[in-house]
């Protein structure tokens, strides 16, 4: 739920949310995902977000009253969603077989190092999707360069 | 180019004059974005004095500029009408405060022309030596500050180390380092002090290796070349049309130096070259000034070998009343042609003194040189014209 008017403040709080997600990854002993989340999301995508915010003049948008009246509806929906998710977690503890599967933390030493696991699966089992994804990214980059080039 | 070629270039110039910032004819920008007018205010680390520059930008490119001067105007020319000829001499030092000796030389020779006298040979030679030392000092200051603007932090200190030696010589000679008032109308007041020749010779002998030091740091440096080559190009035709003089003109390819074209003081006795550039960009102006420092050093070495004996002051009398008339006398100051137009009405005070400052005229070409370049080049171009605001505003 977005509570701040100021877009830059919103971006800062989004950064905080992404860092928190990375923290959750770290707590689940997925350190590679933690650092990749920070490098890509926070260090890459959010930097671009912030760039665009600063290059675009947003004063006009700030003046308009956009969603003030719908604030309470949003709060209600968010609470309903939270209640539903909470119910799922609660029921998975109380009634086995219903709700989410119970996750037990594996012993620390038995987990293989996260980076190696990701690397193995990416380059052995999922090599083709990996290559296709990189070609997709390449196409996107070329498209962006072509679109941004000056028409001379 | 000789005089004839110069005048032909002036008469055949069909270009436009510099326009000031004009929002009515809005330039078609690349992205359709708004143009931006920004102000490099009078207080700025790199405008070499109180110069205000308004830049019209399209993104990062300069599409127009306007220099607003006058922040250092002190009414020097009006003051001249209320001072006697000798009383006015210290004022000319304060215009180009970086090269006071050459401004003083121009003024003294102009008044001597009015009085139809000449300084004695010994005075002329000592004047030449001091003026050439001043040329080296002025170019050293230019080099240090220009390099600093572009980001090279070290040449500044090396240049000031050499300039210190020259200023020591000045101090020993006339007691002052910066606003020297070294010459008098009719010759010199002070005799060359005892170790004058030895000091100058020692400085000149050391100086060659120092120039090599500066060149090692800058001339072949890829970043320096990248920042200065192709930046601020002024074609020969433009330079002549704007009336630009000095190293800026010579770097554009016009071989014009008043020391050779209309020799004054003792310049006709010495052999020296006039360095000329080819493209008229910042790099060429840098090379021309470096070579000029070398040539000045050679002139000094030739001069001190044979300073003629004799009087140092012509017989001009204590009260100077030049016969009514007018004179325009120009010399080659380090920054260009400094000209003195003096009208005398027969009294002890001049009727009118007008000074043609090289920096003021050279600054006109700034707009021509800066259009199409990036903002980061603006500072380099201001530096390369080598302006002193005291001279621009008088």
């Amino acid at each position, binding site marked *: 739920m977005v509570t701040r008017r100021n877009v*830059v*403040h919103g971006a*800062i709080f989004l*950064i905080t949310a992404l860092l928190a997600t990375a923290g959750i990854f770290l707590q689940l002993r997925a*350190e*590679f995902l*933690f*650092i*990749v989340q*920070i*490098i890509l999301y*926070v*260090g890459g995508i*959010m*930097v671009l977000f*912030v*760039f665009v915010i*600063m290059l675009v003049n947003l004063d006009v948008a700030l003046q308009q009253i956009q969603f003030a009246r719908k604030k309470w509806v949003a709060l209600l929906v968010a609470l309903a969603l939270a209640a539903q998710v909470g119910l799922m977690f609660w029921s998975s503890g109380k009634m086995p077989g219903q709700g989410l599967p119970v996750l037990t933390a594996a012993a620390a030493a038995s987990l293989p190092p*996260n*980076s190696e696991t990701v690397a193995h699966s990416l380059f052995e089992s999922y090599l083709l999707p990996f290559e296709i994804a990189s070609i997709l990214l390449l196409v996107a980059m070329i498209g962006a360069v072509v679109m941004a080039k000056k028409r001379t | 180019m000789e005089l004839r070629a110069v005048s032909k270039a002036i008469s055949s110039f069909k270009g*436009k004059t510099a326009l000031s910032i004009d929002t009515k*004819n809005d*330039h078609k920008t690349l992205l359709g974005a708004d143009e931006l007018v*920004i102000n490099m205010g009078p207080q700025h*680390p*790199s405008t070499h004095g109180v110069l205000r520059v308004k830049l019209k930008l399209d993104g*990062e*490119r*300069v599409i127009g500029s306007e220099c607003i001067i006058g922040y250092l105007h002190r009414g020097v020319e009006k003051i001249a009408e209320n001072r006697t000829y000798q009383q006015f001499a210290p004022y000319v030092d304060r215009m180009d405060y970086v090269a006071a000796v050459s401004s003083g030389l121009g003024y003294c020779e102009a008044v001597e022309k009015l009085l139809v006298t000449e300084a004695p040979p010994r005075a002329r030679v000592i004047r030449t030596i001091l003026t050439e030392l001043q040329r080296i000092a002025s170019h050293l200051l230019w080099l240090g500050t220009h*390099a*600093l*603007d*572009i*980001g*090279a*932090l*070290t040449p500044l*200190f*090396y240049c000031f180390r050499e300039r210190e030696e020259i200023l020591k010589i000045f101090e020993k000679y006339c007691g002052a380092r910066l606003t020297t008032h070294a010459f008098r109308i009719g010759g010199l007041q002070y005799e060359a002090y005892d170790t004058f020749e030895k000091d100058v010779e020692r400085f000149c002998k050391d100086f060659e290796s120092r120039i090599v030091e500066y060149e090692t*740091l*800058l001339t072949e*440096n890829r*970043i*320096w070349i*990248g*920042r200065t080559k*192709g*930046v601020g*190009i002024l074609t020969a035709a433009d330079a002549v049309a704007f009336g630009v003089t000095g190293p800026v003109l010579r770097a554009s390819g016009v071989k014009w130096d008043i020391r050779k074209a209309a020799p004054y003081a003792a310049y006709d006795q010495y052999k020296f070259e006039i360095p000329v550039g080819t493209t008229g960009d910042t790099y060429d102006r840098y090379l021309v000034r470096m070579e000029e420092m070398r040539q000045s050093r050679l002139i000094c070495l030739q001069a001190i070998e044979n300073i003629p004996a004799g009087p140092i002051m012509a017989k001009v009398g204590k009260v100077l009343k030049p016969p009514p008339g007018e004179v325009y006398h120009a010399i080659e100051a380090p920054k260009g042609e400094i000209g003195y137009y003096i009208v005398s009405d027969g009294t002890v005070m001049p009727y009118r003194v007008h000074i043609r400052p090289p920096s003021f005229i050279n600054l006109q070409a700034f707009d*021509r*040189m800066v*259009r*199409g*370049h*990036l*903002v*980061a*080049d*603006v*500072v380099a171009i201001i530096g390369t014209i080598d302006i002193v605001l005291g001279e621009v505003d008088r």
Partner: protein
Amino acid sequence: MQATMEFLKLYWAPLLCGVAVVAILPLVAGYIVLVERKLMADMQARLGPMRVGPHGLLQPIADAVKLLIKEDIIPDNADKMVFWLAPVLSVGAALLSLAGLAIGPAFQIAQDINIGILFVVGISAMGIFGIVLGGWASNSHYSLMGALRSSAQLVSYETAAGMALVSALLFTGTLNIKSIVEVQSQEGIWFVMLAPVAFFTYLVASIAETNRAPFDLPEAESELVAGYMTEFSGFRWSLYFLAEYTNMIVVASVATTLFLGGWLRPFAGVPWLNFLDFVPTLLVVAVAAYCLVRAPKQPTRVQQFFMLAVAGLCFVVGLVLVAPVVLPIAKPFYAGIHGGFWFIFKVSLYIYFFMWLRFTIPRYRFDQLMRLGWHFLIPLSIINVLLIGVALIAGSYFNLHGWGLLLVTTPAAVITLVAALLILVAEKERDAGQDPNAASDFYAG
């Protein structure tokens, strides 16, 4: 409460180390600034700070006190929260990335992270936000432009730096810092020999990453855009400054770990070169001897006394350094003490090179800077990764190890340099054809 006590019992050592580092680092950064000023002065034929304390040694303290007692000016319409947050983000990212580094086999705050190098690089990339938000919060058009330029530069050179690091990581197969140095110890060769082009690329990219000359256009005062730090004064500015010098230390440490052998002595595995173990002691004792010689020549009593004190201190340090080599009781401390010395020595050399470059060459214009990053360094580093990969495969096919790997990596480096030359030639031709400095079309009207 119980959980906190258990946590503290397990992790008290790293916590203490962390607190110590955060407490001492401002002092260290201040003295690095003093070293820079003295070096700058030396290269510029002058003396540098001499007044505050003997030979200017108390200058950083004086500067710190001045900055702390300065009035805290916030621009009128500035966003107060972001204005406060921006320097904190910069410093936080810089200090946090220090946690992943290992000065010796025993000194590591965040011990044995599996993703060591990636952690350091990733967290220091977060410092970009401090710059962008600082420029925005200053409510000044020029600061914002400077901040955006600076962050564009940082983002561009991060890619090149990352690829250069990857080239070196190909030799190790792991991101763990201790393992990287161990592999260099096992192979007996530092990665700078095996991947010199990668080292050079990382060197240039790291200069751009830390906003140092010749890439310091966003900070330069002589340019029109005065930079993101303009509106910050007093302590906030010193936080930015601290962040910049901490970034320098981080970047130097990463380069030292990956390329220069971390805490290893040169030729660490070669037994007949063990006399090199005395080099640290000799260096320090030489400094002590120099101070002793210069002491009588000092003009004042205070400075004489001070030189003698420095000589004594260096002598003591020399004794500490020689103890693990000669005394059998102190042998177990060899790795820690000498490792720490060699690491700090290499980091200092790297930082000295940074400073040397700053005083020698002018700065790049922004478009030249970006062109260097995108058109030259990134293709170069990608080609380098490719060729080193090929070289490694060839090496494992022929079962080459250690110095033998040079046989395959040198051709790879040569081919990369040829490719670099070709890129430069192509750029020059494109420049000659285009003439980006043509002013003629802008003068119409």
